[in-house]
């Protein structure tokens, strides 16, 4: 078991003929992801890495039965690519593209709701169910199958933590990088609920960062609804207020969204917060009685 993706997930790549799209398609395919097609308007009939290219998502879905899509198109066109996938009936859209205008993301939200489409990202590294399916740009070799779920707003910090988990023999069910933008698709609570209902997941790691109050809401959800143990880390404890720390969403505005508030909320919900990433495996082992 896992959440969102598994060995049966059929993936198409939007922007497959671009530099990043083609490169990561080969990586995903090498990992074992079932990539059934790619989209590049006007290039139908071509092949990339032996994968058929279609003009539209609709054509690809009809021909292949794809149910997931990963987006590598440039930022000005990413919002439209998400809409196209949603209207074509894709269930899970993963948008890797960074620097997508916030208004474009806001405009896709009502459509996603109407069509019941799940979105991961934008500006995210993607997600992985180790040993089964990798969608995005995650380095597959650091993951291993197991029973820990992981949700993160950051890319490299996720790799850092996953590497430590794997080195400590703590494999993962599914790891999801939700992205660092201020308005994005699936968020902590949506995913925590999925992990809570996943039979294979025994514990969850939440990697948050400054800005917004998603961590506070996650803490509330964990306290009220979750039976499985959760361990957290918050990046940006030393960040100055009002500055955007690389991620558009990581900005503290006059006292709201500080690391201090988030840590307090997690502690109040019985969630231990690691002082540095290397403490995470120990905290998980403690919670699992290992």
């Amino acid at each position: 078991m896992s959440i969102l993706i598994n060995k049966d997930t059929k993936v198409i790549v939007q922007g497959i003929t671009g530099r990043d799209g083609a490169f990561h398609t080969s990586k995903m395919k090498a990992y074992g992801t079932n990539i059934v097609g790619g989209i590049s308007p006007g290039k139908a009939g071509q092949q990339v890495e032996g994968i058929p290219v279609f003009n539209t998502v609709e054509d690809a879905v009809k021909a292949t039965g794809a149910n997931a899509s990963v987006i590598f198109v440039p930022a000005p066109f990413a919002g439209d690519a998400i809409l196209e996938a949603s209207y074509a009936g894709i269930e899970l859209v993963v948008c890797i593209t960074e620097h997508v205008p916030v208004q474009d993301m806001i405009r896709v939200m009502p459509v996603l709701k109407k069509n019941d489409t799940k979105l991961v990202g934008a500006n995210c590294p993607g997600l992985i169910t180790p040993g089964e399916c990798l969608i995005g740009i995650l380095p597959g070799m650091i993951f291993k199958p197991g029973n820990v779920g992981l949700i993160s707003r950051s890319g490299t910090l996720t790799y850092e933590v996953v590497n430590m988990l794997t080195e400590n023999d703590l494999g993962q069910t599914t790891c999801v990088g939700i992205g660092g933008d201020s308005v994005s698709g699936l968020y902590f609570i949506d995913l925590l609920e999925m992990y809570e209902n996943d039979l294979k997941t025994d514990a969850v790691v939440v990697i948050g960062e400054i800005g917004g109050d998603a961590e506070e809401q996650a803490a509330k959800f964990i306290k009220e609804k979750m039976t499985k143990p959760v361990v957290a880390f918050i990046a940006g404890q030393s960040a100055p207020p009002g500055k955007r720390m690389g991620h558009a969403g990581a900005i503290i505005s006059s006292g709201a969204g500080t690391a201090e508030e988030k840590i307090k909320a997690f502690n109040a919900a019985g969630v231990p917060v690691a002082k540095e990433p290397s403490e995470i495996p120990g905290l998980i082992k403690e919670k699992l009685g290992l």
Partner: protein
Amino acid sequence: MKIHEYQARDLFRKYGIPVPEGELCHSVDEVKKKVSDKDKLRVVKAQVLVGGRGKAGGVKLATTKAEAIEKAKLILGMDIKGITVEKVLVADAVDIEKEFYVGLINDRNAKAVTLMASSEGGVEIEEVAKTNPEKIIKMPIDPTMGLMDWQARKVALQLFNDPKQVRQAAEILVKLYKLYVETDSSLAEINPLVLTPDKQVLAIDGKMNFDDNALFRQKEIIAMREADENEKKELEANAKGLSYIKLDGNIGCMVNGAGLAMATMDMIKLYGGEPANFLDIGGSSNPQKVVDAMNILLGDKNVKSVMINIFGGITRCDDVARGLVAALDQIKTDIPIVIRLSGTNAKEGLEIIEKTGLPVVKTMSEAAQKAIELSQK
């Protein structure tokens, strides 16, 4: 991207939001020339991109033209949070019967633009949110419909009683939303929106920020950019594909990935040091990026040691190591550097760096402690 108050007022005026008259002046001479001879109540306001200018003495009232010139002399050249005041806005002051707050933001939770309003105007909205959260009205806006008239009216009705003022305020809200969406704004505030004794509703002070990701389609907005000293350094870094923010400490850090960069700063603090900056070099192993990044770090005179923290994911550590060695070859400096490499092909990467004699460590914690130790020598 941020703009000055006078620029926000120009945009308000363009969209039909009523704003009192005012003149932007860069010198005392300009105040003498531009401001009318008529003696009336005016307010002289420093135009800086940092908050808290009122408390710093950057906003002063004047009753006569002579006094306005006097006040401008005091404010021009003044230092507000490290920024020198280079221009002032000399605006007509109006009598105020009541002050309100209205603003639009990108709301993460609603995943929409949300209109906020409060009868507690003139103070920071974050203060109101803490002390009297029930006094803030929030109205999420459906992006497919925009701010509908009934929504604007509903909010205005909670601020005003008189039907004429309700209408004026609702019109201002609809115009502000139009401005917000058309310019890809990420924050648009009128604070305060005031009611004058002769029952006019006016925008007295405005603040607008814009979504950096959307600037590619906002030519007019980019043209308004007036970066201050801090911002210039950051923009220069951005142009090189780096994300840099200067801080006050003495340990320079260079990291791949924003989240890891933040965690690195935290780690330095955790072990008793102070980070000199936030610097994300992104995912590539391109040596030029490392050279550019090092030049920025070493350009900061406060920097006493440098911590390089790289986690190889898709990019392999041996590639990154070769990039680092090539880059460090070109840089001559006495500042001690600590390198930490981990992740994909870390072993090979570490071997490459060890040959150069630079101190390499395995974990972030070790790197932070070593960098702090070296900074104190």
